[in-house]
């Protein structure tokens, strides 16, 4: 039987102006999580809060999440201190289809870089060639820059202000890739919806598969209540759609199926 876990916070370090990386001990979640999956974390609010898995360490039985402070729940979780015990459900949802990828282009924006970091690490383990592009508003928003640069074969960073990397958005970085670089690649994108939409249009136009991680307000997190639905095209009918559960059928969807 699956169960809810009691995880102990081992480490909490600030990553930038509004987010922190939290490491929890929970061997089951560390063992089972795959890149793209998320965990549902309890706080004093009524419902749990979903966060993408950023990394796992099965030897030490730990996993980590990156938490950006946007409201009361995330602020409370971000301010937890080592030793704190929290109820965590997970790992939840589906994961990136990494098995058959020949080459990966990963495009992350904002907190999207946390779950992408996990995919990047797994790709490195599997000796898959990677291009990693991350975009932030400004340098004080950026995070996981050195780690991701070290794990990727090609690395680009962009910022709206231009105070770090290329001035502009992740699209300005993508446009710099030549055919040799993007041929045969699978694209993974996590971040603001408008960014994922633009990235997937770019990918679809040049015939690449693109997988995106959709975000919805959730309640149960395990597919029972149908509050978290995303519009997904019905198979073989481009003009029809179904409401799929972000938490259980997603959060990862092929961008061609998404009704943006």
């Amino acid at each position: 039987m699956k169960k809810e876990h009691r995880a102990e916070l081992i480490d909490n370090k600030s990553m930038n102006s509004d987010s922190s990386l939290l490491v929890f001990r929970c061997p089951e979640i560390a063992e089972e999580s795959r890149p793209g999956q998320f965990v549902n974390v309890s706080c004093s609010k009524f419902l749990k809060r979903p966060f993408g898995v950023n990394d796992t360490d099965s030897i030490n039985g730990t996993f980590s999440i990156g938490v950006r402070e946007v409201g009361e729940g995330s602020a409370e979780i971000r301010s937890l201190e080592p030793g704190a015990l929290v109820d965590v459900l997970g790992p939840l949802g589906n994961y990136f289809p990494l098995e058959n990828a020949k080459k990966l282009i990963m495009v992350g924006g904002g907190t999207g870089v946390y779950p992408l970091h996990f995919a990047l690490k797994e790709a490195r383990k599997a000796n898959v060639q990677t291009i990693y592009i991350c975009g932030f508003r400004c340098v004080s928003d950026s995070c996981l820059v050195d780690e991701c640069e070290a794990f990727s074969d090609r690395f680009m960073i962009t910022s709206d202000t231009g105070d770090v990397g290329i001035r502009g958005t992740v699209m300005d970085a993508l446009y710099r890739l030549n055919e040799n670089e993007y041929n045969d690649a699978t694209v993974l994108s996590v971040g603001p919806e408008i960014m994922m939409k633009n990235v997937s249009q770019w990918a679809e136009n040049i015939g690449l598969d693109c997988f995106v991680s959709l975000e919805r307000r959730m309640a149960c997190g395990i597919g029972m209540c149908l509050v978290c639905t995303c519009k997904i095209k019905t198979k073989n009918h481009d003009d029809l759609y179904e409401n799929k559960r972000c938490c259980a059928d997603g959060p990862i969807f092929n961008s061609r199926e998404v009704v943006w």
Partner: protein
Amino acid sequence: MSLRMSVGTLTFESPIILASGTCNFGRELSEYISFSRIGGICSKGLTLSPRLGNPGCRVAETPSGMLNSVGLQNPGIDYFLQNDLDFMSSLSTRVIVNVAGHDPDDYVRMTERLNDHSDQIDILELNLSCPNVKEGCMIIGSSPKEIFNLVALVRSITSIPLWVKLTPNVTSIADTALAAQEGGADAVVAINTLLGMAIDIRSARPILQNNTGGLSGPAIKPIALRMVNECSRVLSIPVVGCGGIMNYKDVLEFLIAGASLVEIGTATMVHPTTPECIINDLEKYTAENHIESLSDIVGTLKLWGV
């Protein structure tokens, strides 16, 4: 000591029933809990044709509860009968099918379909209380006369035990409960969600794209308890209590107020193992307090004379 309850012609392994719309058809929850001591499971609310439900954001967290505006997303009754009913009846618990219609004709046509599977269905729960659809349902459930007509109509075409799920969004739940009883219901379920709203102060828009939604969770428990008690005092048929139950003490409150069974909804969404925890705690409580049968405490509320 067992938690078994007899209600009407049926026995239930425990008074704990999983409320409609909070456990889909049981598949996901079956990975977290065993159903052997669960009293029953209600299907997601079914309609004659498949429904996509409402667009946009469908959930808002509120103090001690939540609003939902799912709007009866479901695969339709025919798909359910072909693809989900077998699974539900394999769970070794009572199978309760929750149906919602636009009009009386919808309820009749769905009941006819269910009649063909009456060996697999223990109870038909008429949802006269969904606040998230524009037609039928709560509109019918707000009028004692329409409730009576509808229940009598469905009663006349099926021998499946009939529960009527009532809405709290009425002036007198005793009146709607009595109408259900007179129409031939075997029990009433009280309550469904309360119509509510949550507002984002920055955009000055409701958080739910449907503008309003149904409030559930501990926030509604006092209202549900009051309504269960009102129903149980005027009815001769059993009352199934529902609304905000989070733990075994809440269950005991509902039984004392007059509920013969209870349904648990939002609590399962917060912690999937809640139904099992509650059953464990009830077993412990009855053993420690030498309670032979939980039915002994049903309706034992001693009201103050005022």
